[in-house]
């Protein structure tokens, strides 16, 4: 035994272990993570390639297994489309009327000065993450910054929480690390969206701090309030499900189904700039 502890083998193994402990301590105390960054940068092209293969295989298997379901869904969608075509003429009329009214009151078309990145491809996912965080193929070199909101055509997907030179990590709305101010389109009532383990496993988040006497109902659409300065106002967050009195008895809470399912994402956009970005942070300082 004594010989083993004085052998070269033991010294080498102890040195490697000490190096790894050093890496752990460095990663724990420093905000930047050189090791993860180096590995991630080196492997991101491979990840991109393997993700494409994985997607292709998954899609092919899915098509073969669920062909009947897709056929039925297609028939239902055709019917729905026919109904929507019928409604389009009404909407066009309303849109023109709305435009005239806007001109009358001289209201500028409000787009919040949003600047979007190029389409970002999802190149990988964090293994065993209950919140479904993922990696995108755009990073610091593409103008992505920490806490930039990530969106799709359906709504808000999450935030950028790690930026490396060639890739970034996106934490989804399901995460318990994020809190986001929202309001209801129909009633104008406000609240805060937050995630949790239990909810994330069902693909939901929770809206909290809703007044006890609220008019919110199932199916109400929730939009970002934009007060925090981290996300522009008016981006769809999700649909309200059932609401209930919170455990403290002072307010109500409600389950919310996010507009974006993080597990099915292939391409997203990052909002790199918008009017009022970082305003809340600037005020604090």
């Amino acid at each position, binding site marked *: 035994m004594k010989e083993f502890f004085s052998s070269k*083998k033991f010294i*080498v*193994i102890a040195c*490697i*272990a000490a190096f*790894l*402990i*050093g*890496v*752990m301590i460095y*990663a*724990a105390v420093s905000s930047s*993570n050189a*090791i*993860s960054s180096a*590995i*991630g940068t080196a*492997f991101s092209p*491979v*990840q991109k*390639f*393997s*993700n494409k*293969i*994985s997607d292709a295989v*998954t899609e092919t298997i899915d098509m073969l297994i669920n062909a009947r379901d897709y056929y039925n869904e297609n028939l239902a969608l055709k019917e729905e489309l026919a109904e929507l075509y019928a409604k389009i003429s009404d909407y066009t009329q309303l849109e023109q009327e709305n435009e005239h009214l806007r001109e009358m009151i001289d209201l500028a078309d409000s787009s919040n000065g949003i600047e979007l990145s190029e389409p970002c491809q999802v190149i*990988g*996912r*964090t*293994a*065993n*993450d*209950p919140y*479904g*965080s*993922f*990696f995108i193929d755009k990073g610091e070199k593409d103008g992505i910054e920490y806490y930039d909101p990530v969106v799709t055509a359906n709504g808000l997907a999450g935030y950028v929480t790690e930026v490396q030179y060639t890739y970034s*990590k996106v934490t989804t709305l399901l995460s*318990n690390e994020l809190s986001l101010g929202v309001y209801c389109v129909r009633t104008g009532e406000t609240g805060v969206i937050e995630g*949790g*383990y*239990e*909810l994330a*496993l069902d693909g939901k988040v929770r809206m909290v701090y809703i007044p006890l006497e609220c008019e919110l109902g199932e199916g109400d659409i929730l939009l970002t309030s934009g007060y925090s300065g981290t996300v522009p106002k008016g981006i769809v967050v999700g649909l309200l499900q059932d609401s209930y009195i919170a455990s403290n008895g002072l307010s109500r809470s409600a389950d919310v189904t996010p507009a974006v399912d*993080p*597990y*099915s994402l292939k391409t997203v956009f990052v909002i790199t700039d918008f009017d009022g970005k970082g305003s809340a942070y600037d005020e604090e300082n």
Partner: protein
Amino acid sequence: MTRRTDAPKAVKPGVRTVIKWVIFSLLMVIGFTTSTAGNGGSTGLFLFPLAIAVSVYESEIPACIYGSCAGLLLDVSLGKLPGFTALWLCLCCAGLSALFSNLLRKNIVNYLITFSLTGAIYLGADYYFYYKIWAYEGYELIFKKLLWPSALKTLAWAIPAYIIIYIVERLSGVFRKLTLEQQDENIERI
């Protein structure tokens, strides 16, 4: 009875060793990409059984280095503190390599037993340090719905990982042949 080494003449042993480690490295890359590909959720971790399988056949230092590298890649793919899995795999691979060199027979049963033990301790540590200790709402469900399915998938990966490493080692190693020879009267027997 004598023991002699006999190897295919076509490729030199040094080249075979290089090819073997290139294959091991490629397997590591495949293991990393498979854990980050797909639609997320509970994923089997191919790198963990792979590192343990390598330590069955390799000596302590190469096994320790391979385990450390595989661990670092696992940490990145799992989004964990870099070094958390690496340290565990570094120590496990070195220890298991010593065990398989001196005490245990190199077969799939012993491999599965040692893999299950090291995996179970890692699973417990992961659950404790990343979920239980913080006691966030619903943390108990993580074990049932995420970590346990992932552990079973990783266990399923263990057999193919062992078979691949076994084949690579067989093809690249110096084969040992035991042959019976005629009795030699000149040998002095005590």
